[in-house]
């Protein structure tokens, strides 16, 4: 999704109304309860919240020129990797084996076997169409943000094909867009 993303893909940046800002905060708080105590710092009510609309129905939630969250159409908000790195426990985690790392970093979706092999790991609570942090065998920090296609349990039993869509990964266009100015 952000493979070739750049500033040129942003078609409009608008400060949102207070009511929309509240709504965005609320849905982020609902999706990531762990972030709730931080929301006053991350998205202060008094500061202008910018939503950048991009190609393919993608929205970026931007505060002080820093993209913090993104979503597609009305889908769930997901943190940027830079934000997730700071607060790694806000998302449920999957882990890919070492062999999958280079594919994930090239933008490939995450195949079930990469998660079910000895180096991989699944959180069985995760259902389909859920944002997850993608960790990697032997690494401390997340390398991607995923959106599950199947529940974790089915990923384990089906064990072939794509299990998780790769939404955002290290060194993609969004990663490189540290600030919007």
């Amino acid at each position, binding site marked *: 999704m952000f493979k*070739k993303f*750049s*500033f*040129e893909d*942003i*078609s*409009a*940046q608008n400060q949102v109304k207070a009511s929309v800002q509240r709504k965005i905060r609320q849905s982020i708080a609902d999706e990531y*309860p*762990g972030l*709730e*105590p*931080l929301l006053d710092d991350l998205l202060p009510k008094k500061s202008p919240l910018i939503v*950048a609309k991009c*190609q*393919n*129905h993608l929205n970026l939630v931007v505060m002080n020129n820093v993209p913090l969250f993104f979503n597609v159409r009305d889908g769930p908000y997901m943190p940027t990797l830079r934000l997730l*790195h*700071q*607060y*790694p*426990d806000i998302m449920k985690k999957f882990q890919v084996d070492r062999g999958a*790392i*280079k594919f994930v*970093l090239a933008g490939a979706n995450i195949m079930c076997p990469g998660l079910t092999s000895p180096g991989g790991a699944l959180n069985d609570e995760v259902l389909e169409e859920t944002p997850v942090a993608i960790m990697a065998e032997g*690494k*401390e*920090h997340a*390398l991607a943000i995923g959106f599950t296609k199947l529940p974790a349990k089915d990923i384990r039993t089906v064990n072939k094909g794509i299990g998780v869509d790769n939404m955002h990964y*290290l*060194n993609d266009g969004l990663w490189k867009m540290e600030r*919007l*100015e």
Partner: protein
Amino acid sequence: MAEKPQPVRVLYCGVCGLPAEYCEFGPDFDKCKPWLRQNAPHLYPDLLNDAKEKDVDKAAEQLQAVGISGAGDGGGEGSSANSGSTSGSKQEEVKRLPGGKIKKKEKQEVVIEKIVRNKRKCVTVVKGLELFGIKLSDASKKLGKKFATGASVVKGPTDKEQIDVQGDIAYDIVEFLTETWPDVPESAIFFIEDGRKVAAA
């Protein structure tokens, strides 16, 4: 009230910007190595051992040379010679990525996008004319005159300058551009339609 978690401090590589532990999968691991040896030796113990086994100074010198030639005059000689010893195929694979991207950026093309404001008002945005050596202020005047409307050079979201023309002129504009500036081929003009880039020709 839940407790406020403290932010984790991640060690980002001073060269490639990835978390240092991912440098080995990054765009140019060799370039990161001197930095990693200094700042993150615990992550890559092999790197230290390697360097010790060989002549430390020599290795550092070599790596530095790669760094300079790569960043500066783009001398591929140093880096390719060095990469041969580590993993030639992997290097080639990553090199293509930045190469491809650069090419795309330099590509000369004009992009036209119609942006609808309110219900019936719209603006036609023209980007990229400067890539053909056209002065945007000139072009903006000509467009305004030709279409009897307001046209102005504005900074787009990327700080790049573009021309905003009031009104929907998207379909007459191609002919006007190619006639006014013969250097701009029709094949280099694109429209953004429903978020997709469509060739004008």
